């Protein structure tokens, strides 16, 4: 439904030229939830702003339902924008208007009749669970409530597409989840396509069916999350999954040696990259190789059936069986590193 074709955008500032977007291609199917993930300054906001032409790309096309938005005059563009909702990191509610009036604003711009406005706004506030806050001013709401108001406002003109620019980045984890739940609901109940950008893996994991990774203005990977994470996932994406290395707890292992010696057992860091479930790996070590082990640390993410993450195992088997296990890891593309012996 949305085709972003070869979009590029260059900013000029104090005679410096900066290429914020570089030949972006992306297709979004109707009814999908697509996430674009990237670190700060990667060009996420610029990209999502190009979709509704808040930012005019230097070249390329934005085809929405077959219409190229980049060729429209300002009047037709305004008409198209009414059918594309947008929410922002900092909510952007009007402080001079109550919750009700904020949600009513897009309808007012369309000169919708008062009784219809009232009916619609009430229904929208109910949808986002804020009926009792209609008369409140945004200043008196929590971040999560503000974003709910912004969502209700974005839905006022019955859009077919919702753009979310870091919509949960200013919220705490619990509120983030409730907003994501609301977005998923909206996607399913109202059949609204959602394009969101974020720098948080949690967000993508929670609701996105398709993901693209943006880095230095280029899309470096696209696909379902499982496709992207399995096999040789892109290093940029990897950094979002596992930023922290598994450190060996000092209290437990004071005398970790770098070299093997008689009577010492290896501490192995294992990376799960989706091709073997956590449980199966553990079972294989214990039952197949007959290795008693200590699970020192584990950070495992469950994405559908695939498991991702890192384990730190202290293998306490015989030297022979330990070696066999490591050989088995290598044969099955399970990344492992011996961090030391203890």
């Amino acid at each position, binding site marked *: 439904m949305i085709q972003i074709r070869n979009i590029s955008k260059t900013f000029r500032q104090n005679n410096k030229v900066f290429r914020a977007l570089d030949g972006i291609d992306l297709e979004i199917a109707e009814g999908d939830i697509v996430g674009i993930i990237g670190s700060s300054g990667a060009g996420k906001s610029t990209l999502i702003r190009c979709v509704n032409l808040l930012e005019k790309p230097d070249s390329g096309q934005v085809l929405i339902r077959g219409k190229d938005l980049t060729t429209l005059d300002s009047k037709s563009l305004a008409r198209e924008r009414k059918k594309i909702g947008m929410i922002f990191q900092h909510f952007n509610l009007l402080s001079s208007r109550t919750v009700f009036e904020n949600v009513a604003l897009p309808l007012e711009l369309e000169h919708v009749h008062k009784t219809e406005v009232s009916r619609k706004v009430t229904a929208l506030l109910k949808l986002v669970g804020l009926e009792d806050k209609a008369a409140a*001013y945004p200043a008196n709401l929590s971040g999560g409530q503000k974003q709910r108001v912004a969502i209700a406002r974005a839905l006022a003109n019955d859009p077919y597409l919702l753009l979310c620019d870091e919509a949960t980045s200013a919220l705490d984890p619990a509120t983030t989840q409730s907003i994501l739940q609301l977005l998923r609901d909206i996607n399913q109940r109202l059949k609204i396509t959602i394009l969101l950008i974020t720098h948080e893996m949690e967000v993508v994991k929670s609701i996105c069916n398709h993901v693209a990774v943006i880095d230095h203005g280029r899309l470096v990977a696209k696909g379902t999350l499982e496709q992207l994470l399995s096999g040789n996932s892109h290093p940029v994406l990897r950094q979002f999954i596992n930023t922290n290395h598994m450190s060996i707890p000092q209290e437990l292992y004071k005398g970790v040696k770098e070299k093997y010696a008689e009577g010492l057992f290896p501490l192995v860091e294992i990376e799960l990259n989706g091709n073997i479930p956590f449980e199966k790996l553990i079972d294989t070590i214990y039952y197949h190789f007959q290795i008693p082990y200590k699970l020192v640390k584990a950070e495992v993410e469950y994405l559908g059936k695939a498991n991702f993450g890192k384990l730190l195992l202290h293998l306490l088997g015989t030297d022979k069986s330990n070696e066999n296990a490591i050989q088995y890891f290598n044969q099955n593309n399970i990344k492992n590193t011996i961090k030391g012996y203890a």
Partner: protein
Amino acid sequence: MLDSNISLLAKGLGETVFMSFASCFFGFVLGLPAGVVLFLTRKGQLLEQSFYHRLLSTVVNVFRSIPFIILIVWMIPFTRTLIGTSIGVFAALVPLSIGAAPFIARLVENSLLEVPQGLIETARAMGASPFQVITKLLLPEALPSLINNATITLITLVGYSAMGGAVGAGGLGQVGYQYGYIGYDAFIMNAVLLLLVLLVFAIQFTGDKLSKKFNHR
């Protein structure tokens, strides 16, 4: 004697209040659109137009740099063609309004600059026309700040109108000048002073109250 003094002062006060408020009103009639245009034509704003921005900005600066007392005298021919006379309360409205307008334009421009850029962006994303952005978003969001600026303008105009009194504008300024200064009447002089101070306090107090009432930030 006291009665005639009081009626003199009351008349003067009434004229000063009328001149200040009326010229503030006309000043806004001219200055508000000018301020909005100054804001919208700025670099990076909705209707960016560097040339017109610089042109209007220069006109505003020129008028702001003319001392008010000179402006009154300089405008006498224009005032005379417009009103038919160059003395009296109504004649004073002309230079007062023209003098206040560029001042107001700058204040309005500054008030609008305080509106977060993200809100303008949001309105654009909703498909609002530039006119709707002004009426539905910019002016309502800037209202508390605009009220503060109207207060500052009014107080400035109280001062200007008193100055105008010396050259025949009427109001407390004229009463003070004519009876207090030329006629050596200390009572009138001090009463005029007191009334002006009270008027300024009342305007500031009301302005603060109103601004607060409309501020929901």
